[in-house]
């Protein structure tokens, strides 16, 4: 046996960065339809982005401080790029005007998540219903269904054909896809598309509230858990995320540290000499969970669901930050 002692090669540890990973760069911006642009996002250093599953969304913290949620609609087999589709909202609500008019290739945006409240569950058959920009979470689901060789069909409605994004890339699926612009064909014929209730089929629908209301009526007789919907809302999250420093008080050790922008809470705490065990440093594994005693967290993890976030009693300091000036942690 060789017992070659490798002289300790300059121990410059290949530690995954503890600085804030939660920033992405706009790598491409494309007009997809009237009022819809897509953004391709990548890590500034070209690293892998956190893994995601179809139905997931990310929070983007725009340079003007607004935080918006967008469904991921790219290819998860490309670990280096995310794609989102952004509709210009009426009255320019919720940051969409900023994305359309000002956000440019090369700009940095803050990233939260990905999180998935709309996961694709295993089924023998899928029926997808997309309304307008609600097509975005369905795109990776469709790809996945196709990959698994599962039977599926898509009903895709929009105001006009010109306003409907990603029609081109759906064309390859032929007969499985029905494109239904309202000005040509009127409202979606949901009952005709869905057919009779079928326990082996899962219905996935995303779109504006009136479409989902019509879908709820049309699927009233379907068995429980067969219909899964996500409402497309231009949701703006409470207090705007901050890009300034905040203070973190460590209640048990009595120390207070300042967390500047560009530094993770985890790194700042470690510098103060308080050790928090971590692993993925991406907000996915749950190892660094820390109790929050006071203050309002800015959750950037992929773990907590909306209720757990609202409880505000814990955070993942490897990625999450503060909305308030001060956070008090149980450390």
């Amino acid at each position: 046996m060789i017992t070659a002692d490798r002289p300790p090669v300059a121990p410059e540890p290949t530690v995954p960065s503890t600085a804030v990973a939660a920033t992405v760069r706009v790598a491409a911006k494309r007009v997809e339809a009237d009022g819809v642009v897509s953004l391709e996002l990548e890590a500034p250093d070209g690293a892998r982005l956190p893994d995601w599953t179809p139905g997931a969304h990310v929070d983007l913290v725009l340079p003007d401080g607004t935080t918006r949620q967008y469904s991921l609609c790219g290819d998860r087999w490309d670990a280096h790029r995310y794609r989102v589709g952004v509709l210009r909202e009426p009255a320019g609500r919720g940051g969409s005007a900023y994305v359309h008019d000002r956000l440019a290739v090369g700009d940095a945006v803050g990233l939260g998540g990905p999180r998935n409240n709309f996961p694709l569950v295993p089924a023998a058959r899928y029926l997808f219903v997309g309304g307008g920009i609600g097509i975005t979470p369905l795109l990776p689901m469709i790809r996945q269904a196709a990959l698994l060789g599962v039977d599926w069909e898509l009903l895709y409605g929009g105001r006009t054909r010109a306003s409907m994004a990603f029609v081109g890339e759906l064309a390859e699926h032929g007969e499985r896809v029905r494109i239904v612009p309202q000005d040509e064909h009127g409202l979606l014929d949901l009952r005709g598309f869905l057919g009779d209730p079928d326990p082996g089929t899962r219905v996935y629908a995303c779109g504006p509230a009136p479409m989902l209301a019509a879908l709820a009526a049309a699927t009233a007789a379907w068995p429980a858990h067969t219909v899964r919907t996500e409402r497309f809302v231009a949701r703006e999250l409470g207090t705007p995320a901050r890009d300034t420093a905040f203070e973190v008080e460590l209640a048990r050790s009595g120390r207070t540290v300042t967390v500047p922008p560009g530094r993770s809470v985890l790194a700042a705490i470690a510098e103060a000499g308080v050790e928090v065990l971590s692993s993925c440093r991406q907000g996915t594994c749950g190892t660094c969970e820390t109790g929050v005693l006071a203050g309002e967290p800015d959750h950037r993890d992929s773990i907590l669901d909306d209720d757990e976030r609202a409880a505000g009693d814990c955070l993942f300091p490897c990625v999450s930050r503060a909305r308030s000036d001060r956070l008090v942690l149980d450390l």
Partner: protein
Amino acid sequence: MTLTAEPAHDLPTSDVDPFCPEVLEDPLPFHAALREAGPVVHLRRYDVFAFARYEQVRAALVDWQGFQSAAGVGLSNFRHEKPWRPPSLLLEADPPRHDAPRRVLQKILGPRALRKLHEAWLADADRLVDEVLDAQGPEFDAVPHLTEAFPLRVFPDAVGIPQEGREHLLPYGDHAFNAFGPANELVEKGAPRVGELSAWVAAQCAREVLAPEGFGADIWAASDRGDITPEQAPLVVRSLLTAGVDTTVHGLSAVLCAFATHPEQWRRLREEPGLARVAFDEAVRWESPVQTFFRTATRDVPIGGHVIPDGHKILMFLGAANRDPARWGPDADAFDLARDPSGHVGFGMGIHQCVGQHVARLEAEALLTALARRVETIELAGPPRRHLNNTLRAWEALPVRLRPA
């Protein structure tokens, strides 16, 4: 052992069998030689490629697109060979099939879900330590009395399987982890009982056998909600019974052995019992109870100036990565509570990262906290003896002497 550079393309090679008894007994010199030889080494004996440096192991673990699990995470290549049992829906699955079972289990075993077990497990560990000190006195074998006893007390109950037959759990797990290696004598030794053990394990996964509350019931409830299918539910339960017992037993043995041989670290833990979790992760790094897993290249993967051809197996040495001086510094071999073990790959990394890691940490926290409260010093009372397994680094016997506080 010789590591020779093949003249054609300078790919370092080795003829050593990583699963031979000598290496399993003490893999550290072989690991060091592999790390030294290069970022990738060809293991001629099995025609597989080895990663032993932290950088490549971590990169392969997270790159599920390039390094798949569905062709098996053992030596056997499911593209060509029939698996010995229906493949795991988690460990031996790729996206998209991996997604739904993973999501379900991650929630059921997540830190928030475990909060409700926290107090009971801490109390149970206290009781166990009292009972053992009473019954055995200060000197005993820590493996049966503590590190096997504690997981077997809390974990099968948490899953919700019946009392009867629990003695099958450790032999089943031992065989399953042997089966990731080549069909050597360790696998042969287990073969006669495989049918019986597998049948028992499969029977425990049925809905009507499982307690109305517990991880098992939670998994079936997820199938009622349609988050997984009723066909998947028993295999998801099986993944807990396969991966959740032997691993923690050997993890606990590792941390106790570390303390028995590092008295100053035990003093430190007693002064700061809050370090229990850090101590356990440091022991998981230091000992790597799960030593190795394979992946299969999904395309020609360039690495360190070489190409791993599509469909070839890669053996990732988690244990070697966890002691790579390039990542952990010149004292990588030291067990040290002052070190931040964060980022070790003892639980893997990426989408397959151990979904039971919070369970394992809770068990360890409970047992170490109970011991730290009652035990002033802990030392070896005789030479410990290894238990050989193709994948696990384990102790058969760990004689200890405890001085109660």
